[in-house]
């Protein structure tokens, strides 16, 4: 895409079709509220459109640029929300996590959605649920060594998926 990538309606439509789902997913995750997330995505595209001239594909992908904008929007919305009194009946305050940890966490989750079921399964069972390899192997009816090698290839697949979505180490 040339500089000024979002300068007309068709560009905005294309960028929206390609990236809105992920942007929204991250916005929901970090703001914990679907309505605020919609606001954040709308504001992100509006800011991107205003600054369209400054987008330079030589520096990074459109996706990375949009995420950088969304990150700032989420920070702004988070601040606005922090000063707004919250009704007590809303219950427990959502845990506030630093935005960059949220972004990394979201990237891992998105990568997990992209890798194969077998790989995801062994990572969830052995790492997130902390189950012994032998037990998981028995459940799956495979040798324990196979579970270990799936953990290895699962991490490799995760690495590839992370690179795909713009994680640069």
């Amino acid at each position: 895409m040339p500089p000024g990538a979002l300068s007309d309606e068709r560009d905005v439509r294309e960028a929206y079709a390609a990236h809105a789902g992920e942007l929204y997913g991250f916005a929901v995750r970090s703001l914990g509220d679907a309505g605020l997330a919609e606001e954040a995505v709308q504001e992100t595209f509006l800011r991107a459109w205003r600054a369209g001239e400054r987008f330079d594909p030589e520096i990074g992908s459109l996706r990375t640029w949009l995420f950088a904008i969304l990150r700032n929007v989420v920070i702004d919305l988070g601040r606005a929300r922090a000063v707004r009194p919250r009704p007590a009946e809303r219950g427990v305050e959502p845990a506030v996590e630093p935005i960059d940890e949220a972004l990394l966490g979201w990237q891992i989750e998105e990568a997990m959605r992209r890798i194969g079921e077998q790989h995801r399964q062994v990572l969830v069972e052995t790492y997130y649920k902390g189950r012994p390899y032998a037990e998981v192997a028995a459940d799956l009816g495979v040798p324990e060594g196979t579970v270990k090698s799936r953990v290895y290839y699962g991490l490799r697949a995760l690495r590839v998926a992370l690179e795909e979505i713009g994680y640069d180490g």
Partner: protein
Amino acid sequence: MTAERCREWRELLGAYALDRLPVGERAGLEAHLEGCAECRAELDSLAGIARLMPLADPERFEAAPSPPAALGDRVLAAIESERRASQRESRGRRRWRLGLALSGATAVAAAVLAIFLLGGGGGEGPPEREVAFHSLPPRMEIDMTLVPHSFGTEIRVYVSGVRSGTLCRVFLRDGAGRRSSAGSFRYRWDEGSEAVLTSALDLSNAAAVGIQVGKRTFEAGV
């Protein structure tokens, strides 16, 4: 070190990076890592990912929420509305600049300039007339200003909220219902310009002004 020999060790690297390799298997792997730079590099890379894993919530692995279908339209509408607002602002600035230019000139020069601009009218500004179009479709907007001249009527028109490239025809209608064309233009989404058209019909004889936008025609009394 042969690749085949490394493979056996490598397949333990995931469990090792996640700190889940049984003690009994660790010693052998660590000895191999001492002597194999490639496996060490692979371990470093996997360990970088393993460090991020606690940040993820496994309950979110299944399906990501998707945005409501209407959000895309709202995004485009918000952009369109801001684009219109900034166009109006820049048109306002243009008029303002002209006003400043006039006030900056000497009184005599300004009077001469004014007479020149008005085509021999009085010392007053031309009685521009803003036209309001009612019952337009949602999101569509027509701003129109009529300016009387000795040669006819100047029509400045600004349309938004329609498909880029739409053909727009503008006309005046006299008291007897006869149309007098003021010409046509194409609406362009990304150009902040208004069209300036002219009809030979004198504004004082005009009863209505109309604009055909694509297949729809809108008229307003003058």
